[in-house]
Structures are given as structure tokens and as C-alpha cells.
């Protein structure tokens, strides 16, 4: 059985009893009296003018209450975006469509089936235009996606120029000069980091109610950012924040796909207000594939220059990133997250350019890792190719170029400082726990038998828990949604009169176990049992402020706010206890659910007595206000920078190209750990999504812009039978950025895994002469690479 200790212990999750018995409450589980249902008519073509849109037949169909098109909602403006570079999404198609899956009309009907049926009653004529799908063609402006934009290239990120105010040095001349050196080894590869579909297993769902008597919205949505949605609704409808309540109940996975505010959320709320009845919409899987954000979608050339003995001299990336047709939330800013970690764990000059390009496809945005897996993939793949070129062990070449433990905080060329790290120690541990020497021997033996066995190594550093607050100046906040221009954390801790505690947090779980982790933080700080602590999240009416769950920020930012609020409550409780014990507050010690004077445990006062006193003025000290709660916000002075190194051993079938994963080892470092159980779970899931990209997943549009991977048959997620058990280990290098010394871990596994897998497969087939295979490494692609090399 899992232990029951608090900080650092693996407490069984507080959220599980409901979820394992089917009592978890997700949005689609909710119903209301008089509930109406929505279905969207979505574009079947990638780029066209709408020459006729006739909804009259649909309006007469059984059960249909309303059919809305652009004219009905034009007054609400386009969908808000935090980084409004490029073209913003109209709520419903405005005379033209720009990707398959774009919402053209919305049907509201008495039942879900009637709403679906009525879609057949809507007639649309499209004047089809050539679709712009291929990224390089799009970047060439051969055909423009949007007439009103100057170019399909809507922004370009460069390493030294991304934030002019920082005055960063352009290191390109250093990298170019290194390439001219006589002893330079230059290795270059063009690689694709393919477009992915996030696929949270719960499809997004919205239930909106409007009460005209109170002029109030209540909107349940499967979202990672209830406050941002609340802000967007208030801004769009011209309402006060007190008139909009957004609730995110259980959310069935997010991975960034529920971090956007979507047009459908605004539209369902609009319908509820117009019709005076509750309205619900739940996305179908096929709909989700074409109209929930995608991730990744880069092509680029990575070049590493170094000496023959393994010293890196410089790294260059020249890439194009696919933005899709419309910019939503952070779309254009996603590559910037990659830029910040473009140099990985290594000390070397960088030249890095990523052009953001629009195409006639679904919008891309933050999918688990968001810019960081792409950046690390290019870097770590080219390091692998370089090590192979000079014949050096992949661990040795990395260790030779790492920032050393005594160099932290280490300021990179992008201006950010790596907060703490001991990269070589993590590698040394990995070499030891995996029996790396033994693995190489087994590989040699297998190769001697003619088998294709490979070992791949991949390091990563991540940037998460974003700070400092000045980042708001380059758009990192929810200011365009009416929220404060910061990514501060928020936590409220209240000890109730019966000595239970209520904790209200500004971030919520989409599976990460916040209700348990926060109970551990508060339980540890107060000495109140974890089972007496209730953690509330996801309801904008309960929470003073909430930035939401993304960028692996919850524990290091909102957790810190809660940690600090807990300290304040404890200080106040100490004053009350001191009053009851007739002693000085600084002498009060909390232990075993009670307070006593240091050195005199026999004279104690229970939490129950302290809590009761706090709410009755006649028993609390005169200078202490009634109640026992504190709300604290935390503004991180820097991001946190977790890191680690992964290793995979694979075997490739020489006849079919099928890849079997034999072993997977990691050493990850996310600073101090609150729950080893939950941290490991995050790494497991992250690795699976990284392996998913490396081996299986590929969101494909054909040349005409048809989505070819709209179902889970065409878009294969890893199954239990595709994956091995993972061998996880950790080192602990606390972060100096927050008092708990924690760093994020939600995305680390994904950032570490994809290149590790490709490095392993390339290692397996390298004896045949294969230098690179683009993801996903499905059997056909591996087989073709082998055939080409053999020929």
C-alpha cells in the first residue's frame, strides 16, 4: 500500500475513489431541464469562397430550434487571441473557409440526434480555391492563404532578436566562423517534426446557461483555463467578471489542447443567451481531429559544428513552423518556448531561426511540450549524428559539452538563466542504473548474430513555470482576455471552524492529481491530516485568481503561493495558540494535530480548539482578526529548468522494419519531489506521448487539404501492447526560484523521449548506412530507409 506521509510521500490520490467507481463528473455527464443540443456544420474543403449558404430547410426540420451563421454572431468579433499575429478566427466562417473542419453553421435542437440530422438540411456552395498545405511552398508565398496579409510568413523568431529590449548578441558570426575552421566537423540534417493531434480521451464539451434575471452566465467547460474562458466571455459579451461563472469539473486530459479558448465555447454561450435555455455541445472524435488545436509541424535543417575530439563549436537551426490558418491563443508564440531551450544542456554559440507560416490547416498551438520537444529534437538528433560521425560515445560527447555543476545559475545566449542543474550527475546515474556497459555488450553480441539492435541516448532541458512577470511585455499573460498581465500563482488556505481545511487554487488538474499534491503541501505545513483537507479548483466564482494549468507551472507557481499562504495561516494560528496557552507566539510548535510550547509537549492545544477560537472573538487575541485564512500570490523571478537524460534500446526487424522497444531508462531531475508516485506517473505519460510521436502518430493533410487522419484508426495512439515498462530514476537538484525547491515535470517525459527513440532506431540500422529517418518510424518507413541504404 502507498505510504501516508505528507511531503515527499506517495499518498494515495484523493481524487481516485470517485473516478474508479464511475462517479467522476465530466461536462458531458451533466444535464439540465430543457437542455438543448448543438451540432456544427464544418467545412469539407480547405480553401473556398462561400457563394451560397442556405439554412432554411434545416430550420424546418424536427426539433430544430435555431440555426446560426456568421451574420448572427459577427457583432461579437473574431475569437480573442493572446498573440494576435496573423489572422484571427471568425466565430463562424465569414464568407470563406480556410481549413477542413472550420465551423460554418451551428444547429441547436431538442436532441443530440436531431441536431446532427439537421446538418443535412443546410446547403452550402463553395467556390474552391487552391489550398496551401506544403510548408515550404507556403513560405515561398507562391499562393497566399489570406489576401489581407502581406505574406504567409507571419513572424520570424531569431535567437538574438526575439526581444529587442534585451540587446542580445547575434552569435551567428561565431557559428559561421567555426564552420570555416580547419579542424571543424560539420554535420547537417534536414528533418521533419511532424504535426500531431493531442487526443485527450475526453472530447471537449461545453454546457452553457444564461439567467436573464441575474444577467449571469454559468458555463461548464472541459478546459485547462477556466479564468481565461471567463475573461473571454466577459470581454466578448461586454459583461462584468462577476456576471460570468466558468466551471471546469473533471477534465479528461488536456495536454495543451484544452488550453485554448475556443470559438465553440463562445458560440454555445451565445446560443444559451439568445434562446434562454441551457445548451450543451460535446465534440465528436472526428470533429476534434479537425477543429481542436494541433501541435508541432516543423521542417528544418539542423547543423552542428565541432572539433574531431567532440568539442561543440556552434549550432544552427533554420526551420519553418506551421501555424495553420488562423492564430488562436498563443499560436505564434509556441516556437519561442523552443528558442529559450535551443541550446539544451550545452554551452555553445547558437544561431536559430524559425519562420511561422500560415497554411490551410487547423491552427497549431501548445501540445505537451509546446515548441520545446521540437527544439530539443533538432538539437539532440544532430548531436547524435555528430557523435556517430566522429566515432564518440553519445554520453561522452554530451558530458564534454554540458554546463558544469559549478556554473549555475548559467546565463544562456537567449538571456535566460538556467536556475540549477547537475547534468553530468544525471548521466552518470543513468549509466550506472541501466548497466550501460552491459547493454553495449548485449548489443555487440546481437549485431554479431546479424540482429539490428540499437541504443539511443537523449538529453533535454525544459523551461517551465514561466516567470518573471516582465514576460507579459512580450505577450506571456492572459491580458487580452481581460486578466492581469502576469502569470502569477494564487492560493487560498482556510482552516474551517471544525479544523478541516479548504484550499482554493488558481490551477486545476487534467489528471495531475492537484487535489492530492496540494493537500500534501497544506497538510505538511499545518499538521492537519491530508484527509481533512479539501482542495477546490476550476470554479471562477470560488477563486480570487487563476491562470490555469499549462507549461508545467502548477506546483512551482501556484503550489508556491499555497505554500506561502499556509505559512501565513500557521503564523496566525500560532498567535491564537499562544493566547490559549498563555505563551509567546514564537515559542509555539505544531505537532501531531496540536500546538504546544517548545519543550513542554504536555501542555498543548488542539487544532480544533485553535480553529474554533479563530472564529469567536472573545477567545482570540485582541490584535488578531476573526477567521483563519490567507490568500497569497506568487510571482516567480525566473522559470524553472528541469532536465534529464533518457535511453532506449530497440530491435529492428531486418525484413519488415518493425521496431520493438526492449528497454527504456531515464534519469529525470525536477528538483524536490512532493509525491514520487505522481511525478513518476507524469514521466510515464510524457514518455508515451514522445514515443507516440517517434513511432506512430502523424496528422496528415493531403495536397488538397483533406484531413486523412480524422479517426483513431488513421491516427494510431500507442496501445499498452506497443510500449514497455519504463525504468525511472531521478537526481534531485532543488530550484532556487521557489521555497519548495520544485520544478515542473508534466512535459519533461515528452520532451525527452522522441529523439531518444529515433536515436535508438538510427543506431540499430546505422551499420546498414542509414543516417536519419523522419518520424513516425512506422515499419514501412524504416523498411524503406533500410532498402535505400542497402541499394
Amino acid at each position: 500500500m502507498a505510504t501516508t506521509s505528507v511531503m515527499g510521500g506517495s499518498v494515495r490520490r484523493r481524487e481516485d475513489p470517485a473516478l474508479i467507481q464511475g462517479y467522476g463528473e465530466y461536462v458531458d455527464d451533466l444535464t439540465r431541464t430543457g437542455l438543448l443540443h448543438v451540432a456544427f456544420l464544418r467545412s469539407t474543403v480547405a480553401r473556398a469562397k462561400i457563394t451560397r449558404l442556405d439554412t432554411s430547410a434545416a430550420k424546418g426540420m424536427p426539433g430544430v430550434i435555431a440555426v446560426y451563421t456568421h451574420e448572427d454572431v459577427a457583432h461579437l468579433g473574431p475569437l480573442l487571441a493572446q498573440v494576435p499575429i496573423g489572422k484571427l478566427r471568425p466565430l463562424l466562417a465569414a464568407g470563406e473557409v480556410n481549413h477542413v473542419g472550420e465551423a460554418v453553421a451551428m444547429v441547436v435542437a431538442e436532441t443530440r440526434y436531431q441536431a446532427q440530422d439537421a446538418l443535412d438540411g443546410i446547403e452550402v456552395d463553395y467556390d474552391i480555391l487552391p489550398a496551401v498545405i506544403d510548408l515550404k511552398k507556403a513560405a515561398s508565398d507562391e499562393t497566399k492563404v489570406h489576401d489581407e496579409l502581406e505574406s504567409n510568413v507571419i513572424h520570424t523568431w531569431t535567437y538574438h532578436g526575439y526581444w529587442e529590449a534585451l540587446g542580445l548578441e547575434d552569435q551567428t558570426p561565431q557559428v559561421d566562423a567555426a564552420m570555416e575552421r580547419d579542424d571543424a566537423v560539420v554535420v547537417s540534417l534536414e528533418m521533419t517534426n511532424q504535426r500531431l493531434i493531442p487526443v485527450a480521451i475526453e472530447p471537449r464539451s461545453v454546457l452553457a446557461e444564461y439567467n436573464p434575471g441575474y444577467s449571469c452566465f454559468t458555463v461548464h467547460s472541459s478546459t485547462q483555463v477556466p479564468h481565461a474562458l471567463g475573461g473571454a466571455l466577459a470581454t466578448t459579451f461586454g459583461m462584468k467578471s462577476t456576471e460570468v461563472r466558468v466551471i471546469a469539473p473533471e477534465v479528461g486530459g488536456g495536454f495543451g489542447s484544452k488550453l485554448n479558448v475556443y470559438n465553440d465555447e463562445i458560440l454555445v454561450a451565445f446560443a444559451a443567451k439568445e434562446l434562454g435555455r441551457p445548451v450543451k455541445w460535446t465534440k465528436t472524435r472526428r470533429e476534434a481531429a479537425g477543429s481542436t488545436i494541433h501541435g508541432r509541424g516543423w521542417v528544418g535543417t539542423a547543423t552542428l559544428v565541432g572539433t574531431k575530439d567532440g568539442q561543440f563549436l556552434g549550432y544552427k537551426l533554420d526551420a519553418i513552423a506551421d501555424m495553420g490558418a488562423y492564430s488562436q491563443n498563443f499560436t505564434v508564440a509556441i516556437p519561442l518556448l523552443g528558442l529559450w531551450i535551443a541550446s539544451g544542456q550545452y554551452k555553445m554559440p547558437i544561431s536559430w531561426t524559425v519562420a511561422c507560416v500560415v497554411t490551410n490547416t487547423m491552427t497549431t498551438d501548445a501540445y505537451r511540450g509546446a515548441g520545446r520537444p521540437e527544439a530539443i529534437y533538432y538539437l539532440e538528433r544532430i548531436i547524435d549524428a555528430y557523435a556517430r560521425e566522429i566515432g564518440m560515445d553519445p554520453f561522452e560527447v554530451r558530458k564534454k559539452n554540458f554546463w558544469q555543476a559549478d556554473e549555475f545559475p548559467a546565463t544562456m545566449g537567449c538571456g535566460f538563466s538556467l536556475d540549477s542543474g547537475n547534468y553530468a550527475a544525471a548521466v552518470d546515474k543513468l549509466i550506472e542504473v541501466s548497466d550501460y556497459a552491459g547493454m553495449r555488450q548485449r548489443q555487440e553480441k546481437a549485431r554479431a548474430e546479424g540482429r539490428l539492435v540499437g541504443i539511443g541516448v537523449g538529453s533535454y532541458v525544459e523551461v517551465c513555470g514561466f516567470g518573471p512577470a516582465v514576460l507579459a511585455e512580450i505577450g506571456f499573460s492572459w491580458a487580452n482576455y481581460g486578466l492581469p498581465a502576469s502569470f502569477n500563482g494564487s492560493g487560498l488556505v482556510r482552516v474551517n471552524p471544525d479544523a478541516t481545511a479548504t484550499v482554493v487554487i488558481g490551477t486545476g488538474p487534467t489528471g495531475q492529481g492537484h487535489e492530492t499534491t496540494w493537500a500534501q503541501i497544506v497538510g505538511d505545513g499545518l499538521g492537519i491530516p491530508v484527509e481533512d483537507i479539501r482542495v477546490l479548483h476550476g470554479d471562477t466564482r470560488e477563486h480570487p485568481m487563476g491562470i490555469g494549468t499549462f507549461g508545467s507551472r502548477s506546483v512551482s507557481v501556484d503550489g508556491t503561493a499555497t505554500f506561502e499562504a499556509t505559512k501565513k495561516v500557521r503564523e496566525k494560528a500560532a498567535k491564537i495558540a499562544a493566547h490559549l496557552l498563555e505563551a509567546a507566539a514564537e515559542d509555539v510548535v505544531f505537532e501531531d494535530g496540536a500546538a504546544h510550547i517548545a519543550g513542554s509537549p504536555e501542555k498543548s492545544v488542539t487544532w480544533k480548539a485553535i480553529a474554533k477560537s479563530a472564529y469567536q472573538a472573545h477567545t482570540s487575541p485582541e490584535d488578531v482578526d476573526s477567521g483563519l485564512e490567507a490568500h497569497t500570490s506568487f510571482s516567480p523571478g525566473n522559470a524553472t529548468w528541469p532536465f534529464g537524460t533518457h535511453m532506449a534500446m530497440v530491435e529492428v526487424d531486418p525484413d519488415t522494419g518493425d521496431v520493438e522497444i526492449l528497454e527504456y531508462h531515464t534519469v529525470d531531475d525536477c528538483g524536490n519531489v512532493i509525491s514520487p508516485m505522481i511525478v513518476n506517473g507524469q514521466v510515464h505519460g510524457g514518455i508515451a506521448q514522445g514515443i507516440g510521436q517517434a513511432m506512430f502518430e502523424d496528422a496528415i493533410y493531403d495536397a488538397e487539404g483533406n484531413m486523412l487522419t480524422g479517426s483513431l484508426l488513421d491516427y494510431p495512439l500507442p496501445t499498452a501492447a506497443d510500449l514497455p515498462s519504463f525504468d525511472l530514476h531521478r537526481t534531485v537538484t532543488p530550484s532556487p526560484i521557489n521555497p519548495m525547491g520544485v520544478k515542473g515535470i508534466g512535459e519533461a517525459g515528452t520532451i525527452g523521449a522522441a529523439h531518444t527513440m529515433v536515436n535508438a532506431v538510427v543506431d540499430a540500422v546505422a551499420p546498414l548506412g542509414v543516417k536519419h529517418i523522419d518520424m513516425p518510424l512506422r515499419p514501412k518507413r524504416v523498411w524503406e530507409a533500410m532498402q535505400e541504404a542497402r541499394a
Partner: protein
Amino acid sequence: MNVSMTVNGRSVSADVEPRTLLVHLIRENLNLTGTHVGCETGYCGACTVHLDGKPVKSCTMLAAQAEGATIMTIEGLANNGELHPVQEGFWERHGLQCGFCTPGMIMSAAALLQANNNPSEEEIRHGIEGNLCRCTGYHNIVRAVEYAGAKMRGEEPAAPDWEEVS
């Protein structure tokens, strides 16, 4: 049309459109919302229930096809408040994160262990490959099923494999 069946030990009947899916009958007519819809095509398995003792995907069956059948959903798995060993295993070994795939996953795992309470890791992985999970990477789901198997055999489950903080 009218359909009648036994669900979680209770006789139920409902008037539904002939095209009504079994999962919609379960969720919307019977208000048993623990059975989830993740893909409407039978790939994700979130809708898995037991029909006459066998796991089926209730999103690819019509309610009418279940006429007269005996159905068990996730809400019927615990016995008088006592968790089924698979439910206990998922809790003890962190076999779930967001919980959305969990009811279907648990129903598949329970059926697997009913047929063979001592499966190998490979048998477990193949036994649940019709159920997709996006959160856990399946590692702890496999550990949870191993835990449940040990319990069902009357053995002590293996200790958790996470490295505790020293």
C-alpha cells in the same frame, strides 16, 4: 421502441429511438455516466461494459441489440461498497490520472482477470490493448492489474516500483 435488460442487477426498460446506441441508453436514460464516450468508433474503449459477462464496446452497439441481456457497468463493479480488486489496484498503484478512460479500462481488466488471474505482463498488455489511455503510458495500469491479480490469487502484491524520496 421499448428495450428491456438487466443493468447492475436491476431490471430496466426504456422507450428509445431504434437507432439509439447502447452507451447513450446507459448514460442518458439510466443516468449511469461512468461509462464514457471517447471516439464513437470502438477504438478507444472508454465505453466498455460487460454484456452477459463479456466486455463489449457500448458505443458500437445499438440499445436494441442488448434486449434481454445482463449488463454490468463500472457503477456495478464494487460489491456493497467494497472495491473490486482491479479498482483497488488502480488506486494503490496510481493506475489512473484524468480518469476518463479508467472505467472502460477497469472493465476490460476485470474481464481479463476473470478469465486468467495470473497473466504475464505481455498477456496483460495484449488484454487491454483495445482500451486507449493518453495519461499513464500504461506502466502503472499494468502494475495495477498485476496488483489485482495477486489479490485475486490470495497473494501479497509486489511493492510499488516508484523510488521513494530518501
